[in-house]
């Protein structure tokens, strides 16, 4: 009975939502807003399953070298031949089945014979295209089949399996099956938690946006409700009618969100880089999360509507807004941030053991601190605005407005504050990491730009092969052999001897002067500098290992970061300094100089190297390391933070537009008695800028503090990412300006002469 009446009232609300032009407009705004939010939620719910599916496929084709496997009819020899072509990464494996029952990798239905390959569709296409002309000669193999989806990370991946008859037990791994099953449970749980925190941080602004979207056109709705009260609806009924109206918008928003999600997915599938490509079949939100979105969004929409009506008295003859005079209390808002700081406090004393419990504590602390920021912001804005005074008329109008009702502005900004704080914290951490790993390495790329690390082939063969490749200007080798001190067994760990000419030794250490016959010592951080005259056995200690003595002329030099292992001692020796000793120099690296004017030189070199030994690694010498990934992540964060700011800007714009409409008469009066429009525009600007700047300052302080804590945890030197902070603040300023500018046409229209005639 009662339920039936309630249902009737909800239905009335739904019907009202499509009544008249303004009803439709409001419904459209709500559903587009909710749709945007829902789409973002669905994307967030999809990423885990997308990543899981990809990980599952990668795990299925993984090669795990566990304990030695004896040769049998079901075994396979395989070696990685990962390569690059221009800016593409190519995943490759050499395979040599040792019997009829040798395992097939996932997605592959037949074995390639020696000289044949099974390639991914993307690679097969590249090999036949004009673009791939240079790649065709690298392995000289015929493509005889394609790798199916189960064996690829994504449809755009470049991958192949190349048949080989040259693989031996020494140069390859013997396996009975592809795939690995042992997922690290502990790490997964932490990652899950990290993901959860990230999600909270990411989704808070979305929630704020949803809450704002549901209030679109609320003024008009309230007036409509007042009319309903005049014909006899009671307060509870109006609330249910309003809920019904919002529900209509939210449900439509769910549909719109689903469509937006599909469109975004299809666009992403087409435009993401090959490394990140995914199968459309995997584009499914995790069912539980999707169900949560479908249930929570309408429920939240209704709750927001009902709670926003709580502060409005809808009377038969009009709408009364309850004054915002209630003082915001501080103490309970401090609980979460203080708890967060407490949880993070041990980090200052140098958090060492990153145990599981410790990591949970960090996560909880970060989450508490960030959510605490959102709670603290309303109090901060109210308190700060209360103290503001002075200034011109525009400033006064804005400040007084904020003093009377800061809630609307704060709602819009609190989302920003959390996300920007998190973004700044993560950026700060990244900058610190980047600083640690990408300081100028001092590596010189003037003479050599590429290092080739061969697994097979003699020095002579390599030199001959590389020097004939076109585009190669210089090729030099440095050989390495273990040096075991003859006397002290305690010093045995990690002393090695590297033999090469002066040009190539300069790549490894900062040599002041060098001539053939010189010897240099590079001491690791904790290693003692060996004394002149120390005797060493070169190579595996054994019957024919030759002895060698460190000459008195040896000089100690600093290493160049990047090429030498940090631990242990390295002896750099020019050929003449071996003084006739003939150690086994079959382990060597090749340093290659390329013609900088020839963009294809690197790929010709890769081709040449693949001829000698397909498993050889070809690496660029970088003056700075790790840089690119970190720069990418930082740019991503900046883009994300800017997108969030734009989202917030959009909801602030909606707020301001509603507010201007509501006071069109007052604006006309103000203009009548001579208020310049610039003053009115200025007050709009201040009204947007003050809360945003306050929120942003809180975010910057929190974010920078959090970054410092995280840096301390990662035992990195504490540095602030001024660039990131500056960029975020700049973006915020831009959003404020854009939003204000966007609201000006309406302001101009409302203050046109004749605005007073609207009675």
């Amino acid at each position, binding site marked *: 009975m009662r339920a039936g009446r309630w249902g009737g009232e909800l239905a009335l609300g739904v019907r009202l939502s499509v009544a008249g032009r303004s009803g439709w407009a409001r419904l459209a705004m709500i559903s587009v807003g909710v749709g945007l939010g829902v789409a973002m939620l669905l994307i967030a719910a999809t990423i885990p399953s997308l990543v899981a599916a990809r990980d599952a496929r990668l795990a299925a084709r993984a090669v795990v070298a566990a304990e030695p496997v004896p040769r049998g009819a079901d075994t396979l020899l395989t070696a990685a031949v990962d390569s690059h072509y221009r800016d593409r990464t190519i995943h490759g494996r050499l395979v040599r089945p040792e019997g009829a029952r040798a395992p097939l990798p996932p997605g592959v239905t037949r074995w390639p014979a020696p000289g044949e390959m099974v390639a991914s569709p993307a690679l097969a296409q590249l090999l036949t295209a004009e673009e791939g002309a240079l790649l065709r000669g690298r392995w000289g193999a015929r493509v005889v089949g394609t790798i199916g989806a189960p064996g690829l990370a994504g449809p755009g991946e470049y991958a192949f399996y190349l048949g080989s008859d040259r693989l031996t037990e020494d140069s390859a791994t013997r396996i009975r099956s592809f795939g690995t099953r042992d997922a690290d449970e502990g790490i997964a749980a932490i990652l899950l938690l990290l993901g959860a925190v990230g999600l909270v941080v990411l989704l808070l602004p979305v929630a704020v946006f949803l809450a704002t979207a549901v209030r679109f056109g609320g003024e008009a709705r309230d007036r409509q409700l007042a009319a309903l009260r005049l014909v006899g609806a009671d307060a509870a009924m109006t609330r249910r009618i309003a809920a019904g109206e919002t529900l209509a918008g939210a449900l439509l928003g769910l549909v719109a969100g689903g469509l937006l999600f599909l469109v975004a997915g299809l666009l992403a599938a087409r435009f993401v880089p090959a490394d990140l490509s995914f199968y459309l079949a995997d584009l499914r939100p995790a069912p539980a999360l999707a169900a949560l979105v479908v249930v929570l969004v309408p429920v939240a929409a209704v709750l927001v509507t009902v709670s926003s009506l709580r502060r409005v008295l809808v009377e038969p003859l009009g709408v009364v807004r309850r004054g915002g005079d209630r003082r915001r209390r501080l103490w309970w808002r401090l609980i979460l941030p203080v708890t967060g700081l407490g949880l993070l406090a041990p980090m200052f004393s140098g958090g060492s053991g990153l145990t599981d419990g410790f990591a949970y504590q960090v996560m909880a602390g970060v989450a508490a601190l960030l959510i605490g920021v959102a709670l603290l912001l309303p109090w901060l804005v109210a308190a700060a605005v209360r103290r503001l005074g002075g200034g011109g008329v525009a400033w006064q109008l804005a400040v007084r407005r904020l003093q009377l009702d800061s809630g609307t502005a704060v709602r819009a900004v609190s989302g920003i504050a959390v996300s920007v704080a998190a973004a700044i914290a993560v950026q700060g951490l990244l900058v610190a990491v980047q600083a640690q790993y990408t300081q100028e390495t001092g590596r010189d790329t003037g003479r050599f730009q590429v290092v080739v690390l061969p697994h097979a082939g003699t020095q002579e063969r390599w030199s001959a092969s590389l020097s004939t490749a076109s585009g190669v200007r210089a090729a030099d080798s440095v050989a390495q052999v273990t040096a075991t001190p003859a006397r002290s067994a305690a010093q045995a760990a990690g002393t090695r001897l590297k033999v090469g000419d002066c040009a190539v030794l300069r790549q490894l250490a900062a040599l002041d002067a060098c001539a053939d016959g010189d010897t240099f010592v590079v001491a690791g951080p904790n290693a003692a500098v060996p004394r002149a005259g120390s005797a060493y056995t070169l190579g595996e200690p054994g019957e024919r290992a030759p002895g060698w003595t460190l000459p008195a002329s040896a000089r100690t030099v600093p290493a160049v970061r990047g090429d030498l292992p940090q631990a242990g001692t390295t002896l750099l020796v020019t050929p003449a300094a071996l003084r006739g000793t003939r150690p086994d120099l079959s382990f060597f690296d090749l340093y290659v100089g390329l013609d900088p004017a020839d963009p294809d030189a690197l790929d010709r070199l890769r081709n040449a190297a693949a001829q000698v030994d397909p498993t050889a690694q070809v690496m660029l010498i970088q003056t700075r390391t790790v840089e690119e990934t970190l720069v990418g992540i930082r740019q991503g964060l900046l883009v994300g933070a800017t997108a969030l700011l734009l989202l917030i800007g959009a909801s602030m714009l909606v707020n301001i537009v509603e507010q201007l409409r509501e006071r069109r008469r007052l604006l006309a*009066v103000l203009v*009548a*008695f001579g208020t*310049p429009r610039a*003053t009115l525009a200025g007050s709009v600007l201040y009204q947007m800028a003050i809360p945003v700047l306050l929120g942003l300052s809180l975010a910057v302080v929190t974010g920078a503090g959090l970054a410092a804590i995280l840096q301390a945890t990662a035992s990195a030197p504490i540095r602030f990412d001024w660039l990131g902070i500056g960029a975020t603040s700049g973006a915020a300023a831009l959003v404020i300006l854009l939003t204000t500018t966007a609201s000006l046409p309406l302001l101009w229209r409302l203050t046109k002469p004749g605005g007073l005639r609207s009675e």
Partner: protein
Amino acid sequence: MASPMADDALLTAEDLHLSFGPTPALSSASLRVHAGEVLALMGPSGSGKSTLLHCLAGILSPDSGRVRFDGHDLSAMSDARRSALRRTEFGFVFQFGQLVPELSCLENVALPLRLAGVGRRQAQRSAAEWLDRLEVADVAGKRPGQASGGQGQRVAVARALVTRPRVIFADEPTGALDSLNGERVMRLFTAAAQQTGAAVVLVTHEARVAAYSDREAVVRDGRVREQEYVR
């Protein structure tokens, strides 16, 4: 300051025409407002009295005809100059909804002075004096929403007078008040205007309010029938 009209009128409208779309609001309306007088603009609703007031005040520009204030042609001025004129020479009182709800009554009264560039302290001191003269000193610190309708209108009158304008335009200033409050507003208003020497152009449809005027002009169908001015 020599006006081409050999007349002591401070503000004149000559042959004003103005249409909103197809409906003519003013057709050949002329009017003179003399310094220091209270002129009631009467007429049935929709007759064009408010439109005439807006034209006289330089808020609306007529399609044709001229409005002169102190010898200057308002329609020849830029929007910015007209705004400045409204800030310094004119005052306004409307029926309702004219006070900024977030500002205190004192700040509302001080607003025109601050727009004219007077410092905050000085502006608020003058504003307080005017609130006192209009017998609403007790609501100075309150927001308009916390004052009664009559008090609010007296605050609005104080705001119109605070810059000591030469003309005050009042559009149904008592329209939303009961007769007792309305009379109090009118009594204080006309007395204060008389003291400062400001002319008042008073749009009203109530005879008892018009009775506070010195002279009336009747607007009918966009035309004005003006009572003769006797000094």
